[in-house]
């Protein structure tokens, strides 16, 4: 907006889709701003899904890099945030699959790491168990549960992100609840 001076009160934040359009057209600054704006979101999502800060940082970086090449495929049919969820969740899944193929010894190693949990409030002990169990669910159930309960989305929104129908999300959640009940 050329007629407003820098820092003018009238200057509003440019909407995501405008930035996306500019970035697609090759505007480097717009792309940078877009990534910067959503980095925290990506990181937080990765953190919740993977449960490890170091993994979350890797995943977030991975997603940022990928954005450069896959942004072109974002067609605006879904909200940018939904799309970003999807890209991030894919990255989480791929990292975890790659890791599980790679064997489990590394994680065993990590398990005996010196970082012992400090004393908590009482509720976090159950919370911890819950998180452990939820992360151990099959991917789709986990995604559905986290999107609905941790991210507070409705089944339709979760379906949009997961690329399935609302009823399928409900089904995954139903299955997840059964599984979780058996575990906790």
């Amino acid at each position, binding site marked *: 907006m050329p007629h407003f001076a820098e820092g003018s009160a009238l200057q509003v934040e440019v909407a995501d889709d405008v930035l996306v359009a500019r970035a697609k057209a090759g505007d480097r600054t717009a792309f940078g701003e877009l990534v910067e704006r959503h980095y925290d979101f990506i990181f937080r999502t990765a953190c919740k899904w993977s*449960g490890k800060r170091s993994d979350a940082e890797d995943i977030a970086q991975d997603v940022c890099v990928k954005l450069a090449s896959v942004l072109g495929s974002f067609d605006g049919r879904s909200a940018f945030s939904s799309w970003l969820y999807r890209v991030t969740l894919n990255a989480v899944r791929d990292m975890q699959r790659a890791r599980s193929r790679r064997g489990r010894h590394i994680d065993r190693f990590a398990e005996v790491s010196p*970082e012992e949990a400090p004393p908590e409030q009482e*509720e976090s002990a159950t919370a911890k168990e*819950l998180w452990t169990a939820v992360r151990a669910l099959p991917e789709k159930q986990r995604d559905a549960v986290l999107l609905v309960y941790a991210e507070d989305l409705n089944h339709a929104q979760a379906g949009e992100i997961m690329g399935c129908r609302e009823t399928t999300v409900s089904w995954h959640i139903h299955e997840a609840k059964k599984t979780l009940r058996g575990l906790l």
Partner: protein
Amino acid sequence: MSNQMSDDELRALKQLRTPTPSEAARRRALEASLLAFDAEQKKSAGATQGKGWGARLRSIVPTFERTWTMDTRIAFGLGTAAVALLILPLGYQLYNSTAITPLRTVETPVTQPEAVEPAKPVADQPVEPKDSELDDVATRVAEPAPVLTDELGRDEALQKQAVGGAESRAAAPMSAAEAEQDGVADMGVMTLDEFAAASMPSQEPMMVTPTEPSGDEFTSFEESPVKVVAEEPVSTFSIDVDTASYSYVRRSLTDGYVPEPDAVRIEELINYFDYAYPAAASKAEPFQPTMQIYPTPWNGKTQLLQIGIKGYVPPVAEDKASNLTFLFDTSGSMDEPDKLPLLKRAFALLVGQLSDNDTVSIVVYAGSAGVVLEPTKASDKAKILSALETLSAGGSTAGAEGIELAYRLAAQNKVADGINRVILATDGDFNVGIDDPADLETFIKAKRDEGIFLSVLGFGQGNLGDDTMQALAQNGNGMAAYIDSFKEAQKVLVEQIGGTLETIAKDVKIQVEFNPAVISEYRLVGYETRALNREDFNNDKVDAGDIGAGHTVTAIYEITPVGSGGALVDPLRYDTPTAPDGVTQSSGEIGYLKMRFKLPDATTSQLIEAPIAQDLVVPELAQASDDARWAAAVAAFGQKLKGSNYGGEMSWEQIETLAQGARGADENGYRAEFVQLVDAAASLAPDTAVGE
């Protein structure tokens, strides 16, 4: 329900506070993304690429009107592959712990020596280029790379990891500790430590989960709802001879997990089995309907209307020449025991079935592209079998023109008045050479109109593009089957070879009109993905399912007779019932069946009609034929497995009993196997307390 976790308990998940990302990590990510962006720009400026993210056909399947799904298709494309090469000098840390490589190639690095130097993966990394533009990518990668290492030179931690290679993996706890120092700012209810602790067990095989993420793609669909005859008396659908869903479900259950609802297509479960419907007498009228009406096992107030047809079986003496072109996927992912090796054995079986006037050619794509076997007479079996034997999966050369090559061979060798068919076998990599699915569809349709049909056989699990398989086979007038075992290969390629190869009628549509004076509601069981509009029935331009020699097709309607008390929809308060117009409605006919089909070479359709009369009704289920009770048991199983709204409350045990009593001769043991599947399902998804 105490067997489920409550919503309230799950809401605790919302309490989690995530740590804030460290500045260093954020900066790294931003820099890396900008570099990637620059590389991407440079690439598109080169304009050699077309669509970077569309390199694999699967990535744009949505134009088949499928919904977008969570899949690597969104996240990875050739563009990403190029970026992956770029970023690799970042080192092993990234290389190992993230999934920058396309999903399917991730396995390969595992087997590679861990101590590769950081720079080397550029050459070694099997990124599996999807185009023949490998060289292009490599050169593009070469130039920005130095810049990248320069940037990273500033970041000690990363560089250390990059050089450290494999060791840095083992040192994972250490880097986690570092990460903590980086700034564990505001921890909320849960600390980072808990985070770490909580996540670890997820890597452990500590619990057996009932469903397994499959990675396979299915078209999602809603169950067909109950229709009120007064409002919508006509039901129209296309037949479906595919059986892929049954094999898939069987494999899932045998492996110990419940298949996702979208993977269960009830009509394919029912049609997997052979039914003893009377065969048609002549080639000119290739099938005739067989109908029966009997009580619904899962609902005391409704009935099932079963419509069965069996395709004409040409006499053995009439041995048509066939010209078969095998198009095999030999991408790296086919290198698993249940894929290429099974494929070889399966096709060896098929070759064994051929007679001397048949011809076989073999074309491969995705791994090593090209013609493996020039058209060869089936009399020279040794040559064909040895060509099959030489197939191997792997390699990374893109097979650019696989499908066109296959069709060209098929056309060169076309036999008039015989069977001309391309048989595509794949585990889901449809990178056959035409990468726009709309183009591919058009191509297959055009070839179909020239008389060359296509069948698709799916192998393996984890990458199966079931939706694409179905779409391609439907457009190619062929069937889609899923080969999960040698036994299944035998069924599809030996026992049903006629049906697999020879289409005896195409575009077969079924339309049923119910009489509102007799039937108040109806519901078509299955066939959701095959529904047609009422007006499509008489439109010969609308494509529909095809039936092969000897194939049986069964459709089941659940119908609610007027006054049975089983109606789900209340009558309208302000409806003024129109007096039955004498002859037709009061005839007592339940409905009227119409079927349209075209002979294989015809372009106009023919009509078969039959009234659905009261004398088809069997008052007791026990009096219904074995085939009828069998189909009902399979339908009940499918409905229960996918959590149908209309499945009633049949227990697994009741389904099993019904199936046991209807097995009949079961010469091949398929029905016995089904009974075992019911058992497996019962133990995986036990019947819970009544009402659940």
